[in-house]
């Protein structure tokens, strides 16, 4: 359970300044506001004989754009912060397994990102006067999607931390790997927002779980190579 200590250290440091959490939350808020100004809540479009509000079509993608972009901010700082003052060396000297460092980072990143998401959704609901049909279902989708995002993102964040152009490189290499995850999450979120029957998205949930499990295991195996000297 050593990874809990590492996560606790990260969260303690974070909650002292709240630097990262604040910028993530405000960034996500800004993304939602930009969409609000761009598409409003009244505009509608005529598709296949039905008059649909534009927000209904865009909502799931909008949410996940806000989540992934804001989450990316947190991820890029997650290991970059450790580079200062040789903290990463200190971490590596800890008498713990290398994968414990990864698991600790995963936990602290996931907590920050879930906090950001839990504040973004109410803002979205208020601004677009949106009615979410199945809130527990949506939470499930968000948790599965976020864990996949964090599993891959933490690993790649460790990978890019030693490169020259880490801030730019992380999104460039992370997004191609995330495509399936974002796509499944958006499609499942759409069902949860609109109709709300969990039975509609069992397929998406299954593949999301497979994605999470596969990348979690792979990360356990290859993480040590990313921070080794």
């Amino acid at each position: 359970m050593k990874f809990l200590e590492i996560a606790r250290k990260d969260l303690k440091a974070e909650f002292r300044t709240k630097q990262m959490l604040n910028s993530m939350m405000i960034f996500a808020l800004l993304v939602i506001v930009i969409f609000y100004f761009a598409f409003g809540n009244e505009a509608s479009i005529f598709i296949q004989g039905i008059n649909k509000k534009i927000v209904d079509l865009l909502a799931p993608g909008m949410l996940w754009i806000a989540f992934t972009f804001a989450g990316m901010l947190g991820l890029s700082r997650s290991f970059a912060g450790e580079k200062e003052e040789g903290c990463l060396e200190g971490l590596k000297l800890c008498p713990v397994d290398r994968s414990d460092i990864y698991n600790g980072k995963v936990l602290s990143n996931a907590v920050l990102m879930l906090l950001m998401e839990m504040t973004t959704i109410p803002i979205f609901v208020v601004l677009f006067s949106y009615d979410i049909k199945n809130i527990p279902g949506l939470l499930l989708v968000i948790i599965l999607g976020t864990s996949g995002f964090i599993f891959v993102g933490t690993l790649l964040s460790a990978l890019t931390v030693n490169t020259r152009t880490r801030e730019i490189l992380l999104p460039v290499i992370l997004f191609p790997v995330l495509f399936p995850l974002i796509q499944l999450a958006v499609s499942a979120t759409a069902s949860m927002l609109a109709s709300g029957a969990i039975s509609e998205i069992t397929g998406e949930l299954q593949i999301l779980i497979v994605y999470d499990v596969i990348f979690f295991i792979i990360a356990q195996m290859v993480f040590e190579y990313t921070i080794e000297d």
Partner: protein
Amino acid sequence: MLKKVLFILAAIITLVSAYIVFFVAPVPIEPTEAAGDPNNFKIFYFHLPIAISAYLSFAIVFVSSILYLRSKKQKWDIIGLSAAEVGVIFAFLTLATGSLWAKSAWGDYWVTWDVRLNTSLILFLIYLSYLMVRQAVEEPEKRARLSAVFGIIGFVSVPISFLSVRFVTQKMHPCVVPPCAGSEGGGIGGVVLVYLILNFTAYFLLAISLMLLKIDNEQLKEKINEVKRQKNL
């Protein structure tokens, strides 16, 4: 010597199969049934072999990444790099030839939400970012290590992309090569199969030759660096 023979063989077979595709190979579709110009089927003769060669190159990247992390031998890194570069080119050609064919057969260059199209696109993007990782690190040992990690992650995400894209999809792209679920496949057989195999040989040889050239190239680069280090240049 053996390499030279291989290169010459690759050149000859590629040229011959290109000639055959344009002037000899039949179009196995009735003109009335064909979508668009029936001759657009001829793209298939090199579209499929190029795509499979790209997939094979990516598999080589995956395997050599694992072997590099296990053994830390530089040759695996060089093999991985060469395979990735060739794979990216072939993946791009797959997208290009596929788009041309799609324009003629389906009326659009790109059909949104088709499984194979999107999987090929994602594959192309993943290995582009593999090359980006390599570009971002200067120290050879670290570059080899980090890109090997990404080579593994990237390859693993491909089957999941395929699964996920299939989810929200109608199928445009036909299943041509058996075994196909549900149907008999696109009716490949007889002389078409022979020409197809010829094209497969051509593009496999081409891909391997390009990889070998790139490997030689990288090894020479290493030698130059070695000499430079020794002479303190």
